[in-house]
């Protein structure tokens, strides 16, 4: 009996086992990016920029040339790569601590310049790698190692909505927020990632996909509860949808 392959690992990822915690959606998001790069047949023309945080080792997982950036600086590093190699695809893969806190300046200015790069922004509302401290995206009332009584708006301020903010800049071409908490949303997330890379392909400007993600370890929830928490708590705070699409209008 001949066997027919109906599913296989994407060639967009290496064979290295990932280090991510059980129930973390980084693995899913990696696969989506890898699949898009493979399906667009651009793996050999792509240079990825890894960030600092849980995804610091993503250069071990994406099957393309990769550069490791300092904390928050990935959009500046990507700018340097893309400006030298304008016909290659350049993407950054950043968490919320990296992008929305220490690296907020770099991402805002890369977007303002209309850098033709794609930013994959993984938002799990907490610092994962350093052990569950408050991120700029931590929800009001959310308990973390550094907001043990819950994030208090009067003390720690309010969460930064990165998509909404960057969509106001003229240099952005495609901005969408998606979620990785269930299969239909994961499929939507993949379409968004593809659109973002296509915006880069068409030279339209800066593109970013924000993906709401889980952190069971630091949230203190099991993997299933974490997915529910994204749906019940994160999506209301971070509405999903297309925030900018210069082809399709806003």
């Amino acid at each position, binding site marked *: 009996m001949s066997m027919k392959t109906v599913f296989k690992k994407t060639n967009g990822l290496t064979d290295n086992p990932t280090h991510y915690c059980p129930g973390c959606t980084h693995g899913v998001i990696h696969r989506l990016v890898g699949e898009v790069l493979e399906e667009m047949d651009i*793996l*050999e*023309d*792509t*240079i990825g*920029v*890894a960030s600092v945080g849980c995804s*610091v*080792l993503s*250069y*071990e997982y994406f*099957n*393309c*040339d*990769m*550069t*490791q*950036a*300092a904390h928050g*600086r990935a959009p*500046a*590093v*990507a*700018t*340097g*790569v*893309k*400006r*030298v*190699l304008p016909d*290659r*695809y350049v993407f950054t893969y950043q968490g919320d601590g990296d992008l929305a806190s220490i690296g907020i*300046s*770099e991402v*805002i*200015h890369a977007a303002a310049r209309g850098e033709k790069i794609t930013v994959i922004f993984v938002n799990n509302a907490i610092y994962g790698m350093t052990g569950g401290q408050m991120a700029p995206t931590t929800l009001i009332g959310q308990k973390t190692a550094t907001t043990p009584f819950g994030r208090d708006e009067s003390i720690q301020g309010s969460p930064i909505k990165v998509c909404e903010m960057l969509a106001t800049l003229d240099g952005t071409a495609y901005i969408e927020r998606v979620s990785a908490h269930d299969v239909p949303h994961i499929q939507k997330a993949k379409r968004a990632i593809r659109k973002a890379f296509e915006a880069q392909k068409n030279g339209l400007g800066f593109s970013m996909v924000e993906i709401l993600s889980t952190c069971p370890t630091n949230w203190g929830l099991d993997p299933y509860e974490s997915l529910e928490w994204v749906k019940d708590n994160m999506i209301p705070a971070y509405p999903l949808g297309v925030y900018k699409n210069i082809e399709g209008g806003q």
Partner: protein
Amino acid sequence: MGKVLMKGNEVIAEAAVQAGCKYFFGYPITPQSELVAYMARRLPEVGGLFLQAESEIAAINMVYGAAGTGVRVMTSSSSPGFSLKQEGISYLVGSELPAVVVNIVRGGPGLGNIQPAQSDYFQVTKGGGHGDYNIPVLAPASLQEIVELTSEAFDIADRYRTPVILMGDGMLGQMMEPVEFIDGTESELPEKNWATTGTRGDGPRRIITSLELNAKSLETRNEALQKKFARIKENEVRYKTYLTDDADYIMVAFGTVARITMNAINKARQQGLKVGLIRPISLWPFPEKPFLETRDVVKGYISVEMSAGQMVEDVRLAVNGHAEVDFYGRTGGVVPTQEEIYQKILTVTGGITV
């Protein structure tokens, strides 16, 4: 090509372009802004790219990205901005990427002022950023020397896969002198098969990183870096001496101050005082040889600096107790005068004609 009258900052920029630097990421800060402005005009003429970054931190990280593709790339700044670049410089060293970083030094600490100084000596020669490392530092004393050293800075960067610092005081950046650009011959440089340009069917994928989570592996990596630094120490020492053969006392100075010190030496010589000069051109590696050759025959050394006394520590290490080491320095952007240095010579030597 004949001589042209140019400003120091612009000479660095033109020399970099002629050395094949096509990419520049910078941020304005006095007294080096002319370099940035020159690149903005000049690089498009040679099919290159100038980009004004949003900060010094972004600029050095753009350099990091560009350097990773294998091109010749540069950034420049002045002291407070150079401090901000230290993070990126440490990453360039850790990831072994070639780039040239210019520091046109001004008075500090803090915001200081915009007058010339040499008070970043420790920062450029002793690491500066985090981790165990050294970077080649070249310190020209004239605009003509800038032409030569800028080109050499790029060659050293490529040869060793390291950032190289070109350090001048604000005086050098702002002064004008006639310079001649000479068509250099391209050096034989190693192939950049490590560059991340997209694999394009060209072998396995490449990774640029300074992360090494395993302590033993990182130690191995550090040991390899240290071996590289030792090779640089062996091969890239640069200095000049002036009237040291018969000297009883030797002045030590670099950059602008070395020129003023030479004038003071000339005056002292007219009085019969046997005084010479060692002028370090590479601040790291620090030139030890001229000290080893003279330290047992001279009575002493006088380090003259636009700082509170930084290079003097390297002088003391090189002299290693074999002779007296004295120091004269001005801070805050004050440039020592020829007369002040001459008076220091008189004080140290006792003004005795020997």
